[in-house]
């Protein structure tokens, strides 16, 4: 009897604090229903102003879209390479225990820095342009791919590494002939997954000044050329959906090959 009473009180207190927290969060964010109602009207007006898309602008959107695509592919390629090298040091089955701890914490710290701010810092050092964007995408890969790659390397069977070690293989030989063939399909599928993220990211990075389709989109919005904005939006959607389909297709093929 006592315990059920106690449980009920705990439930009520939890519920009340939940309501209170939500209320304060709403206050902190300036969450107002009236603003939403008004915004909905403005937003609808704005969405109708976007139609129809400016079809003649499409021709001028192709080059920026290709630039964004090239940016994200290059960033993902370089990022995967760097992440693999880092992952080797972060995997417990080849690396030293303390090195592993250090690299793992470095990876999770990197994961906590939004890519946008990495780009802003790089812009401060190398100026606006494709170089900063590629470097930002590359560094951004480390947080996610470094962890996933390291986990994949740790999953390689110990018998494989042990038998290679017993036959006198050096560390580099173990990595190149033992681990790499074993984890390669996984690496590719993770890298493709990251490519999907990077294509969205590079649209966003473009808006801060990395160029490409993101810049076109942001510029059209700030110039209030909504029809042009819609045509660049359609271009972005084509890019994102295209990459997603491609990545799903390649991953399916990889899986079939593996079996």
């Amino acid at each position, binding site marked *: 009897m006592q315990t059920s009473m106690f449980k009920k009180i705990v439930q009520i207190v939890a519920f009340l604090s939940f309501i209170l927290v939500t209320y304060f969060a709403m206050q902190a964010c300036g969450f107002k229903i009236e603003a939403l109602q008004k915004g909905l009207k403005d937003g609808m007006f704005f969405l109708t102003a976007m139609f129809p898309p400016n079809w003649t602008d499409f021709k001028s959107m192709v080059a920026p879209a290709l630039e964004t695509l090239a940016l994200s592919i290059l960033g993902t390629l370089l990022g995967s390479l760097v992440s693999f090298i880092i992952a080797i040091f972060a995997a417990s089955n080849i690396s030293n225990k303390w090195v592993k701890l250090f690299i793992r914490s470095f990876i999770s710290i990197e994961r906590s820095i939004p890519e946008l701010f990495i780009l802003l810092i790089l812009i401060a050092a190398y100026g606006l342009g*494709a170089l900063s964007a590629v470097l930002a995408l590359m560094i951004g890969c480390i947080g996610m791919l470094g962890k996933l790659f390291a986990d994949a390397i740790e999953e390689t069977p110990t018998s494989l590494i042990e038998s290679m070690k017993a036959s006198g293989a050096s560390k580099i030989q173990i990595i190149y002939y033992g681990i790499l063939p074993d984890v390669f399909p996984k690496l590719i599928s993770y890298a493709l997954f990251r490519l999907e993220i990077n294509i969205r990211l590079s649209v966003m990075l473009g808006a801060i000044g990395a160029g490409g389709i993101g810049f076109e989109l942001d510029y059209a919005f700030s110039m209030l050329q909504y029809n042009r904005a819609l045509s660049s939006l359609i271009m972005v959607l084509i890019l994102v959906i295209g990459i997603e389909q491609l990545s799903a297709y390649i991953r399916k093929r990889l899986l079939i090959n593996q079996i």
Partner: protein
Amino acid sequence: MKTFLMEHKRWFQTLLVLIGMFLLIQYLKIDITILFTDFHYVFELINEMFPPNFDVIWDNNTIFNSILQTISMAYLGTLIGGLIAFLFSIIASNNIFNFKLIGSIAKWVLSFIRVLPSLVVILIFVVAVGPGPFAGVLTIIFATIGTLGKLFTESLENLDPTSAQSLQSTGAHKLQTFKYAVWPEFVPAFISNLLYCFDINMRVAVGLGIFGGGGIGYKLYLAMRVLHYKDAVALIICIIILLLIIENLSNYLRHKILRN
């Protein structure tokens, strides 16, 4: 020739990737030498950044408030987005709500939401409700509907149908079946997905600051815009600690829930 190619397959693959990278670098007109010739700028920047000016955090209350604002953005976005996503997933999953056409329309809407980059969404919401944390919250809600809608639909469709069927055979109607058979099985997945999404949304909430989303991200953007790098580094360290805490907390709670 063919055997030669097969024997050295990996070398050729590596070569192809290298050529591809070279072509991409050419296409983007990236001058790699800048990386080395301008490297002293990196040193100058690091010189300017250190030591980080942690006073900025204690100096004015606005930083503390904006951290709270960012957390609230992620919290509200996850909560409201999660609730809407739940309603969506009930409609979209084909084992609970048995209208195939409406279900596939809901699934299509969810994948459309997922495809839209958050840059576009925040730009639209900034036009609609003005810049500030409110626009950020709305963007996070929107994105959360996409992610969680898909996850919820999958976990609803993967539920074991036997308990629902046995309840139905005793004459329980739809709502009762949902309450007593579907809901208890679904709750762990529901909460752990919410926690996972909260972790992601914290990162999104920080990033959205740049595009007028408010919160700590906006403060950091301002500090970098006016070249106060010492303040910026202090804020970045703050953000890293905040995100690490949230990530570990979310992981810990999720493991606990899934084990139970």
